[in-house]
């Protein structure tokens, strides 16, 4: 009996499911960042808005990377449906805290897939996800650095304006790939 399934697909169906789940997560992150960009725009934090618009595009590019990988492996990538996204924030700090929390969840999910790949000797996927591990480290650092500014500069009117300006100077420029 020929190994037709293996000829057609180089990853296990369970790994494919985990990657499809990750696609959904990245799509949700992209939509979430768009909501944050909208909030920042509405509250006159224009530099932060630009930063989140950029983040949204970046998350979508992550999603596409996984999407194409699943299909390249002979799997079936599923176009994700994005559910409800939160548009309500009480402060700029909360926006960045939510963004960091979201990045942590994405990191955990990627680590979980890598863990499963190690268990199942799925070397292709493990190797593919190494790029995401490094990327997540950078993403978390970016958010953490911005949150540190609230402790350093303050949380009042002029401080918020200064933070907003620094988001672009310190982070925004380096974000575009």
């Amino acid at each position, binding site marked *: *009996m020929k190994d037709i399934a293996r000829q057609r*697909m180089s990853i*296990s169906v*369970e790994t494919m499911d*985990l990657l499809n789940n990750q696609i959904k997560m990245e799509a949700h992150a992209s939509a979430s960042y768009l909501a944050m960009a909208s909030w920042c725009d509405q509250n006159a934090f224009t530099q932060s808005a630009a930063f989140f618009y950029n983040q949204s595009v970046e998350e979508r590019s992550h999603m596409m990377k996984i999407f194409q990988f699943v299909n390249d492996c002979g799997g*079936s990538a*599923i176009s994700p449906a994005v559910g409800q996204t939160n548009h309500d924030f009480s402060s700029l700090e909360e926006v960045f805290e939510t963004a960091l929390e979201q990045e942590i969840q994405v990191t955990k999910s990627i680590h979980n897939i890598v863990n499963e790949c190690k268990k199942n000797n799925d070397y292709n996927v493990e190797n593919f996800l190494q790029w995401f591990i490094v990327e997540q480290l950078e993403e978390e650092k970016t958010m953490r650095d911005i949150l540190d500014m609230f402790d350093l500069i303050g949380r009042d009117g002029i401080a918020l304006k200064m933070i907003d300006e620094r988001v672009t100077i310190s982070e925004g420029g380096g974000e575009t790939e």
Partner: protein
Amino acid sequence: MVLVYKSEFYALYQNDIERCYFLDFGHKTIKFSFCQLLALRHKINSISITDHFDSSVNKHGFEVLTLCNKSHLFVFNTLEILDLNQLIQQSLLAVGISIPCNSVACVY
């Protein structure tokens, strides 16, 4: 053709020459490519079986599925869906493209 797995109602066969699968539904046998088999798996996994026991959501307990790029249309009852799910799961295990569920963090 080689039998891959036989469930209570259905059976899946592999055809090495055509490099495809044949699913015997009892009254009808349908040719599936590997991708079409994955698509069927996704459709079955997307079905909420608990809705079959809630008459306000699924009044008659039926599922209408189009298979192989809308070439075929099937109506399945609850038992048939569960059986088809079992067939796909066990078949993918048998052909070595699936890992036993207890060793993987299942997302479904």
